[in-house]
């Protein structure tokens, strides 16, 4: 198709992520997401918290069209998620970086290949891809392991590969699901700094986490879910960002 040539008209001042009265249940009568409305501004960095099973992962899945809402409207980068058809979903996903809670790495490909795959799907030329992959692997501290397969890595190393894959395309939106669950405190800070710097370059970042020490340290805008409902939306303590 003419993907890349045709693009959706977007007003510059519109928020890249908008949800209005969104609900989603996997099991009839049990809402994993219950009437949630929110907007994220361009370049904003937001924490998403809540107990285990509160609906954090589900919320992120709705945003990159892995699940469809039962009710309400979701607009991501100007597109209505519920109405995406055919090539709409892949082309949206190419503009959104995701760190999955369970990493989702290709088991029989090298670390390098796993990261490059995100560039391959957008058709980045080989040489450029190579250097970008190398850079991002250095940022997460894994350049020396780039030839290994994921199964030869420690849990935290795998998680960093997943983070590298999400960052390498410099996406417009970054969704990270417990990206520091397998990292020690020092590394966790480094990774958050990396995401913050992406935000200052204009990426909208939403990080689901249960690590309160991080949330408390950075005092960014924090959205808390409880049983699928939006329980709290604490604005950033400092300026925007």
């Amino acid at each position: 198709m003419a993907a890349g040539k045709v693009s959706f008209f977007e007003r510059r001042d519109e928020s890249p992520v908008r949800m209005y009265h969104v609900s989603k249940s996997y099991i009839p009568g049990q809402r994993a997401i219950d009437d949630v409305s929110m907007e994220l501004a361009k370049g904003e960095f937001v924490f998403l918290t809540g107990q285990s099973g509160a609906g954090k992962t589900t919320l992120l899945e709705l945003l990159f069209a892995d699940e469809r809402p039962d009710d309400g409207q979701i607009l991501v980068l100007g597109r209505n998620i519920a109405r995406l058809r055919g090539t709409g979903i892949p082309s949206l996903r190419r503009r959104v970086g995701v760190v999955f809670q369970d990493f989702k790495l290709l088991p029989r490909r090298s670390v390098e290949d796993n990261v490059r795959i995100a560039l391959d799907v957008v058709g980045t030329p080989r040489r450029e891809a190579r250097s970008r992959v190398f850079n991002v692997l250095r940022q997460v501290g894994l350049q020396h392991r780039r030839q290994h397969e994921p199964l030869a890595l420690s849990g935290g190393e795998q998680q960093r590969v997943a983070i590298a894959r999400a960052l390498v395309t410099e996406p417009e939106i970054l969704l990270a699901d417990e990206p520091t669950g397998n990292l020690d405190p020092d590394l966790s800070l480094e990774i958050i700094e990396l995401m913050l710097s992406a935000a200052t370059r204009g990426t909208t970042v939403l990080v689901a986490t249960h690590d309160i020490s991080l949330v408390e340290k950075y005092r960014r805008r924090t959205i808390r879910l409880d049983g699928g409902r939006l329980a709290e939306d604490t604005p950033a303590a400092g300026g925007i960002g």
Partner: protein
Amino acid sequence: MSRVFVILFTLFRSGIVGLRSAAGTALISAVTIGIALFLVGAFALTIVNMEGVQARFSQKLSVTAYLETDVDDEAALEIAERVATVEGVEQVTVVGRDEALERFRGMSGGAALLEGIEENPLPASLEITLVNLNRTPQGLGILATALDGLPGIDEVADGREWIDGYARVTSLVRVSGVAIGTILSLATLLIVANTIRLGIYARENELEILALVGASRTFVRTPFLIEGTLQGVVGGIWAALILWLAYLLLMPQLEYGLMFLLGNAVPRFFNGGEIFFLVAAGAALGFLGSLASLLGWRR
């Protein structure tokens, strides 16, 4: 433009990398395709050689028309020329009265019988072969009726029994050939599709991960199609090789019986074009098999 090229290159590379990384699965698929194609190929080879048998069988098929005893060889020739104009007749051979006597003498007890006889009591006869199309009981029946009316012809031995047998065997070979061929091809297609689908099951989460990082359907599927096609090609080459080996090993065992059936025709292996066709069939099977498997895949 260059973007498309990059993506194409990447896809092909992924196909190869996929093959390497899932080596076990890929090898097993290739072997299975090979075995299935081997069976189809062995059947095809049999059919190809059967054609020789059929040809020989049908050459023997002829109608004999006995002429009246008072027809001499010249008159017989005239009648023969008239018979040759009948529709469906391929060739007419005149067996003169002297030749008939000669043949009779050769039969056991024949010489004794002829001892007391001065004059040749045997009639001349015509051996009539039919064009391929008319070598059926019906065709022969029609010819017999047409001949019966001609002056000078005494009796027509149309060998219906023989003809009937020929027709039956031909129909048996044709029907069972088509049946076995169809069944074998279908079985092969199913086995190959199943094998490739199992291979894909083993890597289903790879497909899913690719879709999650924004790969289009084409991007996800093309490497698998390439992989399947390559497996098919490898399978086809395999099949041709084993078939050839089997041919070399079994021919000495079978030659004794085959020479009888094939007459002078020498049993033969596939020629270059046919081998190419086998490999191409493998490629097509691999491609279609992966396509079918991917269409069945839910994402």
